[in-house]
């Protein structure tokens, strides 16, 4: 227990500079199946200091997810540069974990097997990997479910497994793509609280993509509003709510929260409306 603790401290210290994320003039263009050129992102400039929790909000199709895949190194920008820790991203970015919107758990592995994947992939001996996984399963509150398969768990429990699987590698950067989007409101609030608790222990840099402005403000140090596609950064708001934040359900009623919400929503609303007008009524939800 002590050794894992100091290990983590050291990792945090070492990760300090490695966790700086910088996007300069990043554009991303795709060729659609019909052959037309589609611009997902245009001239995105964004800097996230090590250990900061950054939430990205914006209307559907503004390239939020694309931004994440480029930081992870799963995809390369068409123009501009993505730098992590001062180095241009080239291949998979080391020290990164990704939490996807749909859970990326292997259905044929048990909870323990799924959580142990990170260490196993990094070449940690199986016994140590399993011990570490057991500890993380306990930490996300799933002790007793080690031998269950994902299909036997509820949506919220699967998210916990994903969270443990993402954090077990002690990432210096955590990328989250609407991780709690599919959960019901109560479960979402509980998971948000747990995420904050775990994040405050290890303090990786986080980019958290969401549709939900309240969620973004409640969790983040910094909220980035993106324009309707092609996406670019419209504005960045610093969230000066004190930490630790406590329950996300309650922080929503604080005057400062409401003030920030008001201010950011004014900026976001135009983009949502622009995106809505483009897709037309009936095809997309207004605030999706």
């Amino acid at each position, binding site marked *: 227990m002590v050794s894992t603790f100091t290990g983590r401290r050291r990792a945090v210290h070492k990760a300090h500079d490695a966790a700086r994320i910088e996007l300069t003039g990043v554009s991303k263009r795709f060729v659609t199946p019909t052959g037309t050129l589609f611009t997902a992102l245009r001239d995105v400039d964004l800097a996230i200091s090590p250990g900061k929790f950054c939430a990205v909000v914006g209307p559907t199709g503004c390239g939020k997810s694309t931004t994440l895949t480029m930081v992870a190194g*799963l995809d390369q920008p068409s123009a501009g540069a993505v730098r992590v820790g001062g180095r241009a991203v080239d291949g*998979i970015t080391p020290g*990164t*974990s990704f939490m996807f919107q*749909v859970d990326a758990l*292997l259905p044929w592995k048990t909870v323990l097997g799924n959580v142990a*994947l990170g260490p196993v*992939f990094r070449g940690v001996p199986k016994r140590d990997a399993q011990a570490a996984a057991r500890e993380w399963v306990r930490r996300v509150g799933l002790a007793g479910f080690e031998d269950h398969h994902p299909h036997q768990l509820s949506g919220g429990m699967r998210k916990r497994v994903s969270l443990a699987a993402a954090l077990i590698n002690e990432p210096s950067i955590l990328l989250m793509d609407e991780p709690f989007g599919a959960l019901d409101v109560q479960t979402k609030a509980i998971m948000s609280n747990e995420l904050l608790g775990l994040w405050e222990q290890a303090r990786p840099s986080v980019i958290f993509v969401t549709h939900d402005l309240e969620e973004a403000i409640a969790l983040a140090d910094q909220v980035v509003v993106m324009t309707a596609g092609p996406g670019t950064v419209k504005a960045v708001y610093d969230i000066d709510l004190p930490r630790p934040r406590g329950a996300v359900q309650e922080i929503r009623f604080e005057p400062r929260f409401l003030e920030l919400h008001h201010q950011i929503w004014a900026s976001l609303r135009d983009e949502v409306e622009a995106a809505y007008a483009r897709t037309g009524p009936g095809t997309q939800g207004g605030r999706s």
Partner: protein
Amino acid sequence: MTEPTAATSVISSRTTTDETAVTADVRASARRRRVKVWAARLATLVIIIGGWQLLASAKIVDRFFWGQPSGIVSQLNDWVRHGTAYGSIWVQIWTTFKEAVLGFLFGVLAGVIIGVLLGQFRFFAEVLNPYIKVANAIPRIVLGSLFTVALGLGIAAKVSLAAVLVFFVVFFNAFQGVREVDRNLLNNARVLGASRAAVTRHVVIPSALTWIIASLHVAFGLAIIGAIVGEFLGAQKGLGLVIATAQNNFNPDGVFAAMFIIAVLALTAEGLIALLERRLLSWRPPSQAEAAAA
């Protein structure tokens, strides 16, 4: 299956609050249904076999061409007691079974390996795509003639033919299975630091396994067909040879009897594959069809 049970439990819960009585009631109704299904199955069998026998005895169905159930039974009895023209019936069964199993194993092995490799290397898949399509369009059973000439009357020709038939089915499923792997799972493994080999081992192959195993059911049937056809084309023993001989002797009962034995073989193998499937895919939630069949 579930609906009537659910309905029963609702009615029962109205009339009685005793939980054990309700469960007993539900169980009894499930048991009654099982008995009914089995009785209907038995009746179907009796009607088909009995009808055939009656029609044959009444000379409506010509038993010289179409045989009759009693003739099939006495033929089986004769084979077990006195053997076939080529020795004991067990030797014939064992020969065919061995050919089918070996062909099956070689075909599955080759199909999985090549399918998984081609599924992962897009370039080679694209290069080989037209040739694979052509090879698939060819009636491969004809290869049996080549194998018989080249490899002789022994077991090798039959195993080769069975393996070729099995290969394509398994190969296409493995190939498709690899290409259908969830991109999220692949990306997640890559971000977690998995090497290419680790991705293949932990993500690609287990994911494709559902597809591969589904193909094994069809594949074993094809392996048996390969073995039998191979024996038809030229052999010194085996059930295919027994059938060919019965055909030449105008003995429809012999053809049916051999058919029956082959069916038993195929069902046994099918059972073993189902067992393997349950073991390898035990992580899967029970599917709708399986739940209904249970």
